[in-house]
């Protein structure tokens, strides 16, 4: 990243650019610009967090309040008047299920693409990233209705797999390609079969990639709204759908809505701290290595 830091902002011909006062001023202007650009991104989350700890009067006050006495009442309301624990559990079950299955099916597939050059499969999986999610919903709805499985965890996990599996495969292709071929080949010569070579040589070496894939998969499953909106029922509803339904009941209870928004978002924001580097790679299917 640092290779371009010397990118010529200052020209050698203009030595006054290097004058301490000018350098100081430029630093101040730079940070002012940066903070200006950065403020909206920071503010929305700060506002969410503040809103979650304000009562209704504080939340609708004009002028808006920056300083107030925080209350935990919103969280109490959200947990007491809704089966919030159940929703959290649903999101976790579906997210963990879809992530684990994506690893179980995706790791060998990515390995096959990297080692056995199954480029056509890689392209087919690209289609999954391009297809609008809604295009699966009509057939899935019909398919799972016939099987009487609409609303089951199984259905939701299978649906979320269409997000987590391609993401895992595409992220992992790059990680497997980074392992020298010779390592696998040496293992094969030493008497391992291809599956042992995969399990004992390649997998342990890609652990950082595996954990990044798992975290990203979980985040995107956790965030998914549309699939659960159609395929979940009262008992298996995931958090985003549940929180969406609060809007109609509690039209203007901003405190409650912010508390709910905070509860969904916080785990995700903590998780990305661990996968910042792989984030871009995941979203662009490995075509950009961030």
């Amino acid at each position: 990243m640092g290779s371009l830091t010397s990118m010529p902002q200052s020209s050698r011909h203009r030595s006054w650019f290097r004058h301490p006062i000018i350098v100081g001023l430029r630093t101040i202007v730079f940070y002012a610009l940066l903070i200006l650009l950065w403020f909206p991104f920071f503010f929305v989350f700060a506002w969410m967090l503040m809103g979650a700890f304000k009562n209704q009067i504080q939340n609708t006050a004009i002028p808006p309040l920056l300083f107030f006495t925080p209350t935990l009442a919103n969280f109490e309301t959200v947990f007491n008047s809704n089966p919030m624990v159940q929703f959290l559990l649903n999101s976790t079950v579906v997210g963990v299920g879809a992530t684990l299955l994506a690893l179980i099916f995706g790791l060998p597939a990515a390995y096959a693409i990297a080692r056995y050059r199954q480029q056509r499969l890689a392209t087919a999986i690209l289609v999954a990233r391009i297809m609008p999610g809604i295009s699966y919903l009509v057939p899935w709805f019909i398919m799972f209705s016939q099987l009487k499985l609409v609303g089951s965890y199984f259905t939701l996990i299978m649906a979320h797999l269409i997000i987590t599996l391609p993401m895992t495969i595409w992220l992992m292709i790059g990680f497997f390609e980074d392992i020298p071929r010779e390592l696998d080949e040496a293992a094969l010569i030493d008497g391992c079969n291809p599956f042992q070579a995969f399990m004992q040589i390649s997998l342990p070496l890609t652990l950082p990639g595996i954990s990044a894939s798992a975290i990203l998969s979980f985040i995107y499953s956790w965030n998914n709204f549309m699939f659960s909106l159609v395929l979940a029922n009262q008992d298996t509803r995931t958090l985003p759908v549940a929180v969406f339904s609060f809007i109609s009941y509690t039209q203007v209870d901003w405190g409650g809505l912010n508390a709910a928004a905070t509860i969904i978002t916080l785990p995700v924001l903590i998780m990305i701290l661990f996968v910042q580097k792989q984030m871009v790679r995941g979203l662009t299917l490995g075509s950009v290595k961030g």
Partner: protein
Amino acid sequence: MHQEHQDLPTTLQKVGKHLPQNVTGWLFSGPAVLILLLMMAFPIVYTVYLSFTNWTPSVLGAHQYVGWQNYIKLIFEDERFQNSVGRTLIFTIGGVAIQTILGVGLAMVFNRDFAGRGFFRTIFMMSMVATPVAIALVWMMVMDINTGVLNYVIELINGSRIAWLSDRSIVLYSLIIIDTWQWTPFIMLIVLAGLSALPTEPYEAAQIDGASGLQMFWYLTLPMLRPTLMVALMFRSIDALKTFDIIYVITGGGPAFATETLNLYIYSQGFQYFNMGYASAALVLFFILVFGTSLLFIRLRRATSEMM
């Protein structure tokens, strides 16, 4: 887990060693392929089939083949569909254009070492990973006509409030603002990755020739970044075309269809009116739009990388 594999019968191990390469490959990828066939390929084929029928769940099993009728009705008669296509294009082209300009600008700001770089970068990443439903809720509050903090500021400057989410002529643009907030960092991060991979020699040469910073940005950085930008634009355009959560939660396509994009239109045809056949035809047209967009950018990318 490798214990299981050691316990496999030795015959299987021997077979594994002598299988042709591509068979071994397919043994690794087979399970994933099966899932993708079942969950992806089958639904696509089934959607295409349904698009030629008048299927609705109320007449279960009794759907008829109607030929191109759904398509003809959508393209030539259904104004709600036509308008939704127009809105989708405005939302996508407008949003992505603004995000690209801002994203490249932000990347230029970030493309240097400064104190707190990591911290600022992390905050910039939050908007694109935070749960869209949660983001939608917060923006509803920020953009609320009476108590929203945005209108408070606007009123201080301008003296009047803006009906961000209830004025039919404004609301689509309000959604573009939110989309821009959410996704500008995405472009920024990809461009940053692209910048870090650029060679330094051309800059050194240009510096010796006395080129200004702006000249170097315009004549060196931008052309060299083009392949990276095409990747960013492709993924961003695809995702903008497919935007659902934010719009569905904030406006539900309203007021009076003012924000009904293609995705929302199809959703309401399919899951509110249960016109599954008709919705499927709209879906096929939606695929074509999304795939056409991806192909366009793949072509453009190829063209730009050949130029380099």
